[in-house]
């Protein structure tokens, strides 16, 4: 299995508080991604990174920020959590070859109350 770990696995937080999710990889893959999964929507891209300190927005980036200070770590921050951000969050990693497999973390279930 690919070395990719998300933490925490579960979190409950209150509306208005900041939350940070961590993705850690041991594969030295260049690309890292954050997705959110909601019923009826599949997985939607929030942000991605193509190298250390190189990040860009995805389809649903409003209310989220990311940082990548090291190759192995990609952090997702909800600056002020809202109930609409209750979701399952997945981190994924990939090399830059178009046909290579993207490997996914186990997911983080975040509940904003």
């Amino acid at each position, binding site marked *: 299995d690919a070395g990719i770990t998300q933490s925490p696995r579960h979190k409950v937080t209150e509306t208005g508080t900041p939350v940070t999710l961590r993705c850690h990889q041991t594969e030295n893959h260049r690309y890292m*991604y954050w997705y959110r999964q909601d019923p009826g929507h*599949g*997985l939607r891209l929030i942000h991605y990174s193509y190298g250390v300190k190189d990040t860009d927005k995805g389809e649903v980036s409003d209310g989220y920020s990311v940082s990548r200070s090291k190759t192995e770590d990609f952090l997702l921050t909800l600056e002020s959590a809202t109930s609409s951000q209750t979701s399952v969050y997945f981190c994924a990693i990939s090399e830059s070859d178009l046909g290579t497999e993207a490997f996914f973390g186990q997911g983080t279930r975040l509940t904003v109350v």
Partner: protein
Amino acid sequence: AQTVTQSQPEMSVQEAETVTLSCTYDTSESDYYLFWYKQPPSRQMILVIRQEAYKQQNATENRFSVNFQKAAKSFSLKISDSQLGDAAMYFCAYRSSWDSGYALNFGKGTSLLVTP
């Protein structure tokens, strides 16, 4: 981002039978890959099969095969000899070099139920 459509929210198949999951996509690109991922109740995302757009031959992985129709922009997944362990959510995904950092663009998924 390219649009990926899975028109079947739920499908059901009996054990040992064959089922086909549909996927269509919208693109003007010529160089891309298509993937099917499986997500069992454990939530883990597992690659089932992949297809390169330039290859006319349909990909096959054991009981899983695809019917790739490039002109029709269709990429269906056929599961033969269905097993109880095949019960899962299945996602079709598109990837191109033009999209966000080679990110996968997913359909909304098809939930597959396998009955004994």
